[in-house]
């Protein structure tokens, strides 16, 4: 294992932990998209550019968008109560 691979694996581990430890859901959604970005770097470093492309579109763009919209919608409903 080359150092770059070890570094990115550590980054992914730290990112995953950060997602779990984030308490505020909006913040969690943002941290999650950074975690997605760390995964993209991991796939790239491990020479899987196709998977990296899928991960960058789904993990750090599409999924956070859906999550943030869902959070906003739920918050608005709670605010009206």
């Amino acid at each position, binding site marked *: 294992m080359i150092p770059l691979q070890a570094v990115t694996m550590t980054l992914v581990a730290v990112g995953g932990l950060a997602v779990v430890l984030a308490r505020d859901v909006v913040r969690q959604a943002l941290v999650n998209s950074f975690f997605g970005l760390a995964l993209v770097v991991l796939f790239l470093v491990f020479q899987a*550019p*196709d998977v990296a*492309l899928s991960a960058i*579109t789904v993990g750090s763009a599409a999924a956070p*968008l859906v999550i943030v919209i869902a959070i906003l*919608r739920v918050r608005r*409903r709670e605010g*009206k109560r």
Partner: protein
Amino acid sequence: MSHRVRTVLFLVGGAGLAALLGWAFSGLPAFGEYHGVYGRLINRETLGQTHALSAIAAVTFDYRGFDTLGEEFILLASVLGVALLLREARERDVDASRGAETFDPIRATGLVAVPVVFLLGLFVITHGYLTPGGGFQGGVVTGLAIVLVWLATDFRSYAALVRKPLADLADGLGAGAYVAVGVGGLLAGGAFLESFIPRGTIGELTSSGTIGLLSWAAGIEVAGAMLLLASEFLEELLARRER
């Protein structure tokens, strides 16, 4: 359950999990070792058989084209499910002015990014069998490029650009085109999804037989699905009437 009991329970469970994981990892093949046969076979045969430079595109749209067909319809069905579940929020109920005004720098940067990202998406769809990428990744990028319009400006500009029936049509047509290309293989006397057009010269845009066509079919379907999904979620977010 008290805090103390929970901590002890976690420590015992965590230690057990760590021990099992350590045991499992110690039995793994050495880092970078690969014992599979399929991968080696694909690496050796792809170029000669499919003329595709990207072995991954050759697997997804040629050797395992039928699996991708299944995935196409999984996506189609799930987007259909979202559209059905959220159908109560109709376009006329949407308060398009809702949401904060975007700052000018964000608006400018976003609008500059839209055509660039859109073009990138089309590039990724087109060159799937030459470079990393393909229909799925390119389709998501293309669709999200248009969603950027909403992020940069407001829902009104986005809704003027994206007509839901059109996104619907792209979603369905893409999935249908994939099946049609597959049937083309049957009509040409081969198997379902077997390439029926010349493989061309390796490395050129006209190479790889039906891989390019299938990639486009998947790209159009995925882009339509992304737009439909985004439209449904945005309408739900901006709906005037509370359920």
